[in-house]
């Protein structure tokens, strides 16, 4: 079972990684992805909203798919919502496995599918007061599609 958390507060990568491996001697590697807010085009903040309830279900389903595809020992997904400023972390994906390939591949899979299959929306706020909803990118769909396979 993956640990899935939606929260406004920042997260602690080291603490989350330590919690995933605490007391375990069967884990050979932990892979991590941390998504960070960039200051593109004078951006002063990003405001994230989500669909409470559906978000947790959607991420749990993506994590269950990862656990079906790779032999995982543990998995943590933390996604922040609310106001996030440039340089701050937005999302954390951790995967633990006996071997590196499963950890690294499943980590990439989780963030790729999360970007296209979990109900979050980003609004950009600029220094001059302008606001703009981030548009979904076809590139993200193409990246996520590399994990598609016949059922």
């Amino acid at each position, binding site marked *: 079972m993956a640990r899935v958390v939606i929260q406004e507060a920042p997260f602690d990568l080291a603490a989350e990684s330590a919690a995933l491996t605490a007391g375990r001697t069967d884990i050979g590697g932990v892979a991590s992805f941390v998504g960070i807010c960039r200051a593109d085009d004078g951006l002063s903040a990003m405001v994230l909203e989500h669909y409470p309830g559906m978000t947790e279900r959607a991420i749990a389903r993506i994590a269950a798919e990862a656990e079906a595809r790779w032999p995982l020992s543990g998995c943590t997904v933390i996604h922040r919502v609310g106001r996030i400023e440039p340089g701050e972390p937005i999302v954390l994906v951790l995967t633990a496995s006996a071997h590196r390939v499963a950890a690294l591949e499943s980590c990439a899979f989780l*963030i790729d599918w999360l970007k296209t299959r979990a109900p*979050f929306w980003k609004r950009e706020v600029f220094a001059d007061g302008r606001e703009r909803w981030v548009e*979904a990118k076809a590139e993200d769909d193409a990246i996520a599609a590399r994990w598609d396979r016949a059922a």
Partner: protein
Amino acid sequence: MRLLYFAWVRQRIGVAEEEVSPPPEVTDVGRLLAWLAACGPGHAAAFADPRQVRAAVNQEFVGPDHPVKPGDEVAFFPPVTGG
């Protein structure tokens, strides 16, 4: 039927959720969207281009042909941009 709106769909409509009782001929997501688009200027603006709107029924992503019925929770929103 409970409707939820997110991101610019919510902003254009002006509310985050509402209860509606569509007529019996509104049997799927596509017909619900078309019926809502005629409910007022905010709704019309939100649903002007249905290709830009995604939907979920009872917290599952669905397409326009998915059935809707009284008691469902139906959400409309733009393509997702998390991560």
